[in-house]
């Protein structure tokens, strides 16, 4: 790590605060009130490795499960409009219940550990993915569907070859929001023994110290940004026709 370069740069910006400590100053301790201790960070960065991997695992599995369920129910409700308000309400309930409460509501049934966390996190993503999928499908122009039907596409062909491709932008947007939100909320998994970066913020029944929190926070934000950008790129790639504008 070019930490000396980083510190020198930070020194320019932050003045005294970020200056590299010289040998005659005491190495900083990661104290409860110390905003950021570079020494501690440098030495202890590897303890963030496993929590990061756990965190990723929680997020990816939860979102995949959430997507699979939400997408499936959206397809089911697509041509049955009477189902839509109750489904929206049901997924809304799961979204509204604060995650930490959700963990402990599940506790008597599924116990401690990452499985409980995954169930709760997946439930949280259902509404946004379901709603965005429905929105995407609803935005397909009626005339396009009329033309497809009149040309001889079956209902199923219309869904898979016309409606869903055209709904991709909204669906991917929903997925993107779901992932970013889940990355943030997965920090709470620590309360239910699910691991993740939350363990570096709250461990053993107490809040840790700012340096640790900042690093965990940075990793979370970085993760969120990476996924956000990756999904934007994926969406562009999947919808080449949107770049084309009227000649």
């Amino acid at each position, binding site marked *: 790590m070019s930490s000396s370069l980083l510190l020198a740069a930070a020194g320019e910006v932050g003045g005294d605060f970020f200056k590299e400590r010289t040998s005659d100053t005491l190495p900083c301790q990661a104290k409860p009130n110390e905003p950021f201790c570079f020494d501690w960070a440098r030495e202890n960065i590897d303890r963030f490795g496993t929590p990061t991997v756990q965190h990723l695992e929680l997020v990816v599995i939860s979102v995949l499960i959430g997507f699979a369920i939400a997408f499936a129910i959206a397809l089911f409700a697509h041509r049955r409009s009477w189902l839509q308000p109750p489904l929206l309400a049901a997924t809304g309930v799961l979204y509204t219940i604060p995650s930490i409460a959700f963990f402990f509501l599940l506790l008597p049934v599924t116990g401690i550990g990452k499985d409980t966390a995954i169930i709760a996190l997946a439930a949280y993503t259902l509404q946004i993915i379901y709603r965005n999928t429905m929105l995407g499908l609803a935005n397909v122009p009626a005339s396009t569907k009329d033309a497809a039907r009149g040309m001889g596409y079956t209902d199923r062909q219309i869904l898979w070859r016309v409606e869903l491709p055209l709904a991709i932008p909204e669906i991917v947007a929903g997925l993107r929001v779901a992932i970013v939100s889940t990355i943030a909320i997965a920090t709470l998994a620590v309360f239910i023994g699910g691991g993740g970066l939350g363990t570096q913020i709250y461990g053993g029944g107490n809040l840790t110290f700012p340096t640790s929190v900042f690093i965990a926070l940075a990793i979370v934000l970085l993760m969120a940004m990476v996924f956000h950008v990756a999904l934007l790129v994926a969406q562009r790639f999947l919808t080449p026709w949107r770049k084309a504008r*009227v000649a």
Partner: protein
Amino acid sequence: MNDQPAASSVRYEETTKVYPGSSEPAVDHLSLEVPAGEICVLVGPSGCGKTTAMRMVNRTVEITSGDVLIGDSSVRDREPAQLRREIGYVIQQIGLFPHRTISENIGAVPQLLGWKKEQTRERAAELLELIGLDPALGDRYPAQLSGGQQQRVGVARALAADPLVMLMDEPFGAIDPINRERLQNEFLRLQAEIRKTVLFVTHDIDEAIKMGDRIAVMREGGRVEQYATPAELLMAPANEFVEDFVGADRALKRLALMRVRDINLWEAPLAHVGQATAEVRAKLASPDVEVAYPLLVDDERRPLGWLSERDLAAEIVPGRPDSPLGPVLELDDVMRDALADLLQGEAQYAPVVDHQRRIIGVLSVEIISEFLKSPEAKSDEHPAVERPHE
């Protein structure tokens, strides 16, 4: 294009549509036959059931009772999706797939029918040419095309699998009037070549008269008040409803049925480049000259422009005439369009040329209005007119 029959007849037999919850049928026992290869226009006020009637042919509206036969087979015997792949379908809002290229859009039905990729691609290119679009557009997306181009693609898409019947529901309704006329003419020229059976729905009687081989004037319940050729409709409306719908200015509407060649044209005094102007002025002085200006033509008798007084003031006829040609008409042009061109171009005269652009005669608004006032225009006797397509 191929040796198989290109089109089938369409027959409505007591076809009825009643929507659930409705006391009145939307289409009440419609019986109508459309001969193969003809354009039948269903025209009437909104809500009369014309679109519903058209949609019962490909079962995008299900038939309540009665039947629709394509050729000899009932549409009710077929599975709807299968049936529709054999019927061309063009709608007002066009409905191209935004996420597919133009070629892919055109090839949609062939693909559904399982054609090979190469075959489909070739067919798409063929059709692009047929509808007069640059084949390079095949790789563009619909959003990159204008409305007129999109609708052309819509027509090409409907023709791709060489259907027996075409259904067209106000296909040019969403296009601006100038392009609409162009598209109408192009479609008529296309139809002259491919001769499909077309069911064409419109609320515009002028479009009906221009496009239809036969016209069914409908009122609520899909009731046909008259089913006849355009000429019959104009000359012998069956009742007050038809008369009102067709409009009082039937004489003007007759112009849609005439071609420029049907009328007696005037002759303009001709002038050649380099000719002595004295000769030209002599022609002008003649008592039975009909046109006030000399027409400058080249060696092949192709018009170049009109000569003004200033031009004639010189010794010899100049190469560049003072006044431009203005609208130039052909013998095959529909008279109504010719009148419109004359009026729009604010031209008193328009040269009429043949296929090689050689001058035949001159048309003026006066000639047309004289014709409209003549007993010939108002009589019920009428020489057989050919449709404005060959």
